[in-house]
């Protein structure tokens, strides 16, 4: 018992120390940004992200730094990752919209249903659905144990069933979007999509820095993408950042 307690205390302390370190690094990166040293700030944010830690503010600031260094694609990628964690952040949406407007050429946009379901994060959707599901089955169980309460619980039970079905459907859409509708964001100035996953394959179309493309398939270090004109081609993984759907 003492052994497990010691491990628990060690894990909690290590977590706190790590969080304190990241806070200090984050403040240092912010300082670099405020001084106009955007390249250094971008590297500093990247270093924090490479530890595996994530927060909407960290990704937001990383996106800002990338934008200031002229990397539209990397900025959009950071904002979109932040959007996965904080989809209702107005400042984040404003910056993402602003950077998207700077992108040249055609780019993929989320459909209205994708925008609608992505107002909640996937985890929020999962917790909400689980809460309604637990409430529904809890009410079912109470009605079994105390049948006399069934008439009084009828409205609450129906509401719980309706909310469970509705939130479950939304969660299904969110999960489908997250796991199947991956997006490739071009992170180089000009990426050439090729007809096959080879360097010497014929070029099909080109996409500018920041263009968002639909991911169709992956093969080794190549990603098959489609642009909004319906053209399909292969891009090297070095040219894009692949993100899950919202």
């Amino acid at each position, binding site marked *: 018992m003492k052994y497990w307690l010691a491990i628990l205390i060690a894990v909690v302390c290590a977590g706190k120390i790590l969080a304190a370190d990241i806070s200090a690094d984050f403040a240092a990166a912010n300082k670099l940004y405020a001084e106009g040293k955007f390249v250094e700030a971008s590297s500093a944010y990247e270093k924090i992200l490479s530890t595996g830690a994530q*927060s*909407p503010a960290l990704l937001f*600031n990383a996106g800002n730094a990338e934008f200031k260094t002229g990397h539209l694609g990397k900025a959009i990628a950071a904002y979109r990752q932040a959007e996965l964690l904080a989809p209702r952040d107005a400042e984040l949406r404003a910056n993402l*919209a*602003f950077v998207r*407007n700077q992108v040249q050429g055609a780019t993929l946009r989320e459909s209205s249903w994708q925008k609608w379901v992505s107002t909640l994060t996937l985890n929020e959707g*999962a917790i909400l659905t689980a809460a309604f599901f637990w409430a529904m089955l809890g009410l079912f*169980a109470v009605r079994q144990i105390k049948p006399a309460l069934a008439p009084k619980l009828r409205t609450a039970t129906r509401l719980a069933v309706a909310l469970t079905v509705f939130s479950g459907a939304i969660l299904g859409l969110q999960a489908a979007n997250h796991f199947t509708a991956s997006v490739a964001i071009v992170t180089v100035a000009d990426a050439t999509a090729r007809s096959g996953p080879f360097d010497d394959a*014929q070029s099909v179309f080109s996409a500018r820095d920041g263009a968002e493309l639909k991911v169709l398939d992956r093969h080794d270090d190549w990603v098959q993408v489609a642009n909004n*004109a319906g053209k399909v081609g292969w891009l090297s993984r070095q040219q894009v950042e692949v993100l899950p759907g919202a």
Partner: protein
Amino acid sequence: MDTEKIMRFTLKIWLRLFATALLPGAALAASFTAALDRDTLTLGENATLSLKFSDGQPQATPTPPAVAGLQFQYVGPSSSFSFINGSTSSSITYNYIIAPQRAGEFTIPAFSVVVGGQPLATAPLKLIVSKAGAPSAAAVNSGSEVAFLKLAFPKPKVFLGESAVGRLELYVRDDVSSLNGFQLTSAPTDGFSAGKTVELPNQRRRVQVGNRVYTVIPLAVPLTTVRTGALALGPFTATVVVVLPSQNQGGDPFFRQFFNQGEQRQVQLATETVGVESLPLPEQNKPANFTGAVGDFTMTATAGPTTVTAGDPVTVRVQISGRGSLDGVTLPAQEAWKNFKAYPPTAKLETADQFGFRGTKTFEQIISPLNNDVREIPPLSFSYFDPNDGQYHVLTQPATPLTVKAAGATPLPQIAATKAEEKPAQDILPIKENLGALMQNKIPLVAQPAFLAAQAMPVLAFLGAFIWRKRADNLANNPRLRRQRAVAALVTAGKSDLKKFAAENKPDEFFATLFRLLQEQLGERLDCPATAITENVVEENSILRGAPENLRKDLREQFQLCNQARYAPVRGTAELNSVAAQFEKLLGELQNLKS
């Protein structure tokens, strides 16, 4: 002697032939050859490379060499086995598609492999790839071309950023019975941004070219110039498979019309190069807020709400409609919006044609008045260059009256503090100072086994409640089961009482309890009231009459002991314990008795 030598020699020859027939594999050596199905082709066509191994097989599929300008794609193996006149042979062929990326003369180097410890090599192969060229005017007019392509651009001179639809026409000779597999293999549009090539609907026509009639299939290529200077459009190259009437005209004409399926032919097509001059936009009279919109546009703008508190958002909706490259149209920064905090606009494009050159782009920009001195949203302007008249045009929307009420006490100092440095300039919002909650686990909850397993808990709770309810209902609807359980509880309690009375040497209470327990247990087993149970029931009840004799004897003894106790109550603890033990044994037998 000579005859004997000849006989021996002949015998040796026969023996060798016999051994060769029996052990063919041992006698044959592996061979390896490389071959192309053709050594000259046109850019856009493919050749097939076959690596054939006879009487042997390599350990792994041979890797094609890296030849600049040639792309190899492995198709798969094919194998064959033959047995001819007692001799067997086998071969395996590895096939590769070669797709040339440019014209030129290529050398595919020799392949070297080891088969069964034996090094084998092929000879190098030559492949000549020529550029597809447009057919000459003489060839077209002679009618010898089954199909050909023509490319046209509507203007010889265009301005930078101007959009136009190039026209690609596929001419197909009238004797072609079927056409399929049309595919553009190359579409060089250097200096242009090209959209998707589509067929123009309902515009096919028939024309006379030379002495033949051709069907013209028009295709549209939407193009927008992205750089200035002399631009070259094309040559576009394509392939198409046509079906021509078969050359075999023999047989009955009646049957020929049903069974003549025609001859398929793949045709390589190419256009001429079309030169286009892209002119820079004039610097003269260029408006200050020109952002590069080229075309012919109109503008409408609305704003609302028009009665707000200082700091509240007002949505300005601007619609730019018309013809041109709407994709690149942006809303210019409005210098007159100094008294507003402007957020980045969002844009939505609705196209009215298939090329995206006509339509409406709607911008929505949120602005908020910084103070209550603001009386109007200043005039909004948008400028564009019209390539038709070569002039810049400025569209202006009049000012929109705005009523701004004073804000509460708190926001005013903030506005005052930021007023000096804030511009309605277009830029991203600043960074966040607070790191917020850190998240380490990037796996969504729905993909975490622990989260999914936890969802089984309410299901199990519900199932538990459901089973409990079913058992309770079952008991309520079964009086015999209810009595059985009540008697079991009574007997359990009674056995404790018996032991207690035995220990305290209280024979009266002991036998009264024993008698009652016998009545209750027998009453439950025989499904009759407990008060109706006496010793006589052992002889009278049909169930007990069919019971084992030992059980009946024990029952009689127990009843008799109870009766005797009323008249001869003196008993010791040891005897009472013995009776209690007998009773427990009897209970076990009674509970096994079928009622």
